[in-house]
């Protein structure tokens, strides 16, 4: 027994000795972080994230955590933040606002006070907005509710910075696209069908409706809602279609767009009704979930779904950031599962890259980690312009708190030799899955370039 113990200790010691010796790899040179003017070696910077890991929408959070972990490993192995190592510190709130509050209290009262944190949902942002300002802690988020980022009047930028455009701006951007393609969408009437709640109803505002009208797009005044557990939403979809809707816009994710698509396909309306949605609808989860919902052309019902895609996507292999992430995902043991190769995993990576850049800039300015506090980070962020791994562009100058560029894209499925998109079920690529079903490979085809979104906050510049 003792012999093994001695051996074990010896092995551990050798491990410890060998580790620091192993040569540190360098970052690829296309990642243009600010040059380090201070050396932070030996210190740690926590990436604090609290969100709904076990609640209703957990399936979109888990890849985010995997993304954090992989990206942190990657960057730490390549110098971290000027030598400082990042550590992941996350807590589960189960989608319960009182747990969010408790987690926030816990983190915000730590010594030293966190200088930045990562939030999860629109509702969390709305809850914590004032408190973050009061406590002087900036936060990153990937949710675009006006109230969370800009307050009730839409004009008071807080300390929360979003990596995606406001949901209402995305809706406006979508109307712009529809209005500009009148030959494809003659006399467009949009029916808004979504989940109830802060996230689901975020884009259905008077400003957005007015803006859409100005683009020649009618939005039905009555929106329909359904729950994530709704078995069948035929009635809701028919209500909208009966009122003349030719486009159904949904601000949901994962099972939400699939439910809408299922009802449309079941009703045989695929050719007359266009499904569209927020940036989360163009996600792997939607493509994979719809594999049991097949339309008349043999492709999943969500084929042709139009949505916002304010990020670079997995299929854009010529982009170095996507290349890098794909390489890491492929080289994992086992390789990253298909359901984890979604938008949240990419966001996890981009947020870690943002951390590196934000802290480098801040440390350079204040000259050391100890001097970095929330106010210092906020100062960096409030005039921050960066493109994390080239996945999307941020420019937080002049009180902007969200990503202001967006593009419209279509969800398609790959054809058999992966040379393009499938036109029907017969030429589509299908991967046999362990559960006996076949999965189609969802790909996202951008149809517009990145362009600035309209500003549709209450009192925003583009509100007609």
């Amino acid at each position, binding site marked *: 027994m003792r012999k093994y113990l001695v051996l074990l200790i010896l092995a551990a010691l050798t491990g410890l000795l060998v580790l620091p010796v192993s040569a540190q790899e360098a970052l690829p040179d296309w990642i243009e972080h600010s040059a380090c003017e201070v050396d932070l070696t030996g210190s740690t910077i926590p990436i604090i994230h609290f969100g709904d890991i076990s609640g209703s929408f957990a399936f979109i959070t888990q890849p985010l955590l*995997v993304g954090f972990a992989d990206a942190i490993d990657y960057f730490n192995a390549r110098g971290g933040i000027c030598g400082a190592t990042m550590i992941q510190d996350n807590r*589960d709130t189960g989608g319960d606002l009182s*747990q969010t*509050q408790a987690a926030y209290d816990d983190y915000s*009262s730590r010594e030293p006070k966190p200088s930045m944190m990562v939030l999860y949902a629109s509702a969390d942002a*709305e809850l914590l907005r004032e408190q973050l300002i009061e406590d002087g802690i900036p936060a990153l988020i990937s949710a675009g509710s006006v109230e969370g980022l800009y307050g*009730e009047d839409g004009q008071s930028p807080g300390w929360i910075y979003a990596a995606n455009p406001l949901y209402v701006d995305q809706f406006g951007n979508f109307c712009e696209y529809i209005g500009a393609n009148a030959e494809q969408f003659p006399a467009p009437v949009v029916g808004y069908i979504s989940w*109830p709640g*802060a996230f689901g109803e975020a884009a259905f505002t008077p400003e957005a409706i007015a803006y859409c009208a100005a683009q020649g797009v009618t939005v039905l005044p009555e929106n329909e809602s359904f729950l994530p557990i709704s078995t069948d939403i035929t009635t809701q979809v028919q209500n909208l279609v009966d009122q003349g809707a030719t486009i159904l816009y949904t601000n949901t994710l994962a099972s939400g767009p699939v439910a809408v698509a299922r009802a449309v396909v079941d009703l045989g309306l695929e050719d007359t009704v266009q499904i569209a949605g927020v940036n989360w609808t163009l996600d792997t989860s939607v493509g994979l979930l719809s594999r049991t919902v097949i339309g008349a052309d043999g492709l999943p019902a969500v084929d042709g779904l139009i949505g916002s895609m304010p990020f670079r996507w997995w299929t854009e292999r010529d982009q170095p950031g996507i290349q890098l992430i794909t390489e890491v995902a492929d080289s994992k043991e086992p390789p990253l599962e298909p359901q984890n190769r979604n938008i949240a995993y990419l966001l996890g990576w981009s947020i870690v890259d943002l951390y590196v850049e934000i802290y480098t800039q801040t440390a350079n300015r204040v000259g050391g980690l100890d001097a970095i506090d929330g106010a210092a980070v906020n100062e960096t962020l409030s005039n921050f312009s960066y493109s994390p791994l080239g996945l999307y562009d941020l420019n937080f100058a002049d009180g902007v708190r969200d990503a202001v560029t967006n593009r419209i894209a279509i969800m398609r499925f790959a054809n058999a030799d992966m040379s393009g998109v499938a036109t029907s079920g017969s030429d589509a690529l299908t991967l046999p899955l362990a559960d006996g079903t076949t999965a189609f490979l969802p790909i996202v085809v951008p149809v517009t370039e990145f362009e600035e979104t309209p500003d549709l906050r209450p009192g925003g510049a583009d509100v007609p």
Partner: protein
Amino acid sequence: MSANIRPSGVFDTSYGQDISINRTRGDKWLSNGLLIALLLVPLLTAEGPLGISLVPQLWIGLIIRIAIFAIAVQGLNILIGYTGQISLGHAAFMAVGAYTSAILARELGMSFWLALPLSALFTGGVGLIFGLPSLRVKGFYLAMATLAAQFIIPWILRYPLEGITGGSRPLEVPAPSLFGLSFAHENAMFYIIIPLAVIMALAARNIARTRVGRAFVSVRDNDLAAELLGINVFSYKLQAFFLSALYAGVAGCLLAFESNSLSLDKFLLDRSIEMLAMLVIGGAGFPLGPLFGVAFVNLLTQNIIPSIIPSVKGVLPSLFPFLNPINVDAALSPLLFGLALMVFLIIAPRGLAHRWEILKISWKLRPYSH
């Protein structure tokens, strides 16, 4: 039962002594001392006026939350613990209180001090309406009738009243102020919430000792017998619903003004069920039950379990290699909470306050415990 037990040698010599809550001088010093100590807590935090961080700032938020929910659960205790009427709609009543006060403050510019009692009374009235089925409906059926409140009230707030409640969007609530003094900081809110919680708790304690309280208990124990004794069962049931909703209204109002932001997501069914759990854990029908239950559940879910998770997280996947570490991370908080609750229910099915009473009696009677 326990109320009449005093240490040997202590006798009541007047009626006043007999009905006093603090029966001995020791009790009195203890309870007053505890209250004063509690009120001193915010002064000792880093953000307090003295600037000494003897007490972590975290405690203030924790104590405030416990106090607010203790008020709400106190109301539930009147309804369930004393009167025996189950309610699954308590969070909805809190929503009524919160939204009424917020709207009074926002739309009519009413001050917090006026909005608080008005919203409490209004909530009481709403409670009366949903108490009406208790005339005929009992037990689980009543629980489900109150569950209807849990769905109908938020629906009304969300859709027909969207114009003033903002529907699904959050509502900003102004901070209370008094003579130009703003209570925006949580250390300041502490001095509104804690005294109010103490007053509400004392009121509940005293209601239980009055004629009304005794009538409640008789309705709980056997409503038919109570009716035969000449107690107007329906009237007392409604009174219990009114009082219970009133407490919920106060708690909801405090919650709205404490966090300055209001959204319907804070008052979902989970919250109602959680409050029921808090009451049962603390001990239904005991004056101290709500406090114990709220404190226990809050500490468990917000402090104890999160502090255990990191250590368990590393161990479990190595014990069971088929588990995915990411899944373990997410699963631990419901798992541990469920486990703790189960163990606890098996050990103390009548609640913490029941244990506490037993402990207190054996302490007072020491060394002769018989």
